[in-house]
């Protein structure tokens, strides 16, 4: 009998262990399906649910928060999806949240994504609310678009093929491409351009400094560049200069005629300048005149000492003294 009791105890442990595991298993699975926590219902209307089924997960910003309770056809263009959401996320889901049908991974189960929108309403969702929806990305549509893209690519590659063929058959282009000298020259040219560019940069820098100096200083050049009054005066001056230079040209023209005439010996001055015989004559005349004047001086001395004229000369001397 003792043996039987210990056997029964061990049997009891066995049975309890098995039952506990069953209960835990069922509870954990149920908890994952949101069957035991308090929930609320919201719904959304889709145009196409892409194979969404009852029991699929509902995610709020990527976290599982509930399951799809019911998928039913509402009208010919709307499918109503009722979702069972855990109460604890109620405070985070706003009325303006957007629901969309998505896929878990690339080939996984369908699911409903609920996402908040920026600057949406502040009010929380309530039991029975209908959320806005986004049109799901359809594989068919994607494939259709891809098909068009493929067609375009086909044309483009065809054209590219023709172009490459033409390039291949063109000797000029190949020789151009294969010519190393051109490449070297080009390289050199680019180096030069680079040098020029750097120099230009320096020059422009200098110029900038200079213009800055102009703007700030009151030097003549700056005034020249900046003073508008001065410029008009300068203009006048230049005009006058122009006129006077014209006149100078005229005068110099006359002068040149005169000098040419003088050179050719025309007129008195011309003769004076050019006739050497007349100059000798004039020199001898002046000598004679010198002699004549000396004789006249002696005559005058003699006259002073003449009694007839002596008084006259004395009166003259007195007058000069006074």
């Amino acid at each position: 009998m003792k043996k039987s009791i210990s056997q029964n105890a061990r049997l009891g442990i066995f049975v309890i262990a098995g039952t506990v595991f069953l209960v835990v298993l069922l509870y954990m699975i149920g908890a994952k399906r949101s069957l035991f926590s308090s929930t609320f219902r919201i719904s959304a209307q889709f145009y196409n649910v892409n194979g969404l089924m009852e029991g699929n997960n509902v995610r709020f910003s990527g976290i599982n928060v509930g399951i799809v309770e019911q998928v039913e056809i509402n009208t010919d263009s709307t499918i109503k999806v009722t979702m069972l959401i855990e109460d604890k996320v109620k405070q985070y889901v706003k009325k303006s949240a957007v629901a969309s049908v998505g896929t878990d991974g690339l080939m996984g189960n369908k699911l409903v994504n609920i996402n908040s929108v920026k600057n949406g309403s502040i009010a929380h969702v309530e039991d029975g609310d209908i959320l806005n929806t986004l049109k799901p990305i359809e594989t068919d549509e994607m494939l259709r678009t891809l098909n068009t893209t493929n067609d375009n690519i086909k044309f483009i590659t065809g054209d590219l093929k023709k172009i490459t063929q033409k390039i291949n058959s063109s000797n000029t282009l190949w020789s151009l491409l294969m010519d190393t000298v051109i490449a070297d020259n080009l390289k050199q040219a680019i180096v030069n351009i680079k040098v020029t560019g750097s120099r230009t940069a320096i020059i422009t820098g200098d110029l900038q400094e200079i213009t800055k100096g102009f703007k700030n200083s009151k030097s003549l050049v700056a005034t020249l560049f900046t003073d508008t009054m001065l410029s008009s005066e300068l203009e006048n001056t230049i005009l006058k200069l122009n006129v006077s230079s014209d006149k100078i040209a005229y005068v110099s023209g006359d002068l040149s005629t005169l000098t040419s005439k003088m050179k050719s010996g025309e007129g008195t001055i011309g003769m004076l300048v050019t006739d050497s015989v007349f100059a000798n004559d004039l020199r001898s005349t002046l000598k004679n005149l010198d002699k004549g004047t000396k004789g006249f001086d002696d005559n005058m001395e003699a006259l002073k000492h003449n009694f007839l004229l002596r008084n006259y000369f004395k009166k003259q001397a007195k007058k000069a003294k006074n």
Partner: protein
Amino acid sequence: MINKPALIRFLEEAGDITRFTLRFFRELFHGRFEFNELLRQSFFIGYKSLGLVGLTAFIMGLVITIQSRPTLVEFGAEAWLPKMVSISLIREIVPVITALICAGKIGSGIGAELGSMRVTEQIDAMEVSGTNPMKYLVVTRVVAAVLTIPLLALLADAIALYGGYLGCNIHGAVSWRLFWNQVFETNTYSDVIPAITKTFFFGFAVGIIGCYKGYNSRKGTEGVGRSANQAVVIASLLIFILDLIAVQIADVLGLT
């Protein structure tokens, strides 16, 4: 009897088993129930098999995980390892393996025990002494098998999943919490309930075939061996047939 065609013998056998089963149900619902004997049998069938079933389940969990890994890695779906392993273990491998182990251990045990009682005329002696051998020997054993094999399968599930967890961590790194999260995430009631339900039928098959073969044992000690052997063979076969039927029913009911 030996000269009869195989088909006739098969049909006769099927008819006999059916009649035996009906008699079992008649005895089950009528009259007194041998409760203490049921506890004793549950102890032997259930508790005593736990070590064997647990070891098998642990190894199966570990092996299935290690075997599945390369294929999943090829698809880049290594993260699915706990999910896939837990689904295959809970839905199919653990119930069937448990039932087969039990068919080998319990089915042959019952067959040999009842067979030896039959050939040593103990069963006849019981009938003479007024004890209903069907009630005392057959009903208790079959009910014990029906009740304990599902429990064994459940515990085997737990042990096999632990084996799977270790298997995941041989090459990869899956935390304890992540593993169980994925297991409970993936498995639904439609995975667990049909799997557990079918183990009741497996248990019934093991118990009833063992009892039938032992109860109808013939020809001395040689017959005892035959009974034990046939009990295991037929019970194992029946487990697979039941599994086939179970999966069809589950499919029709949409429990996939």
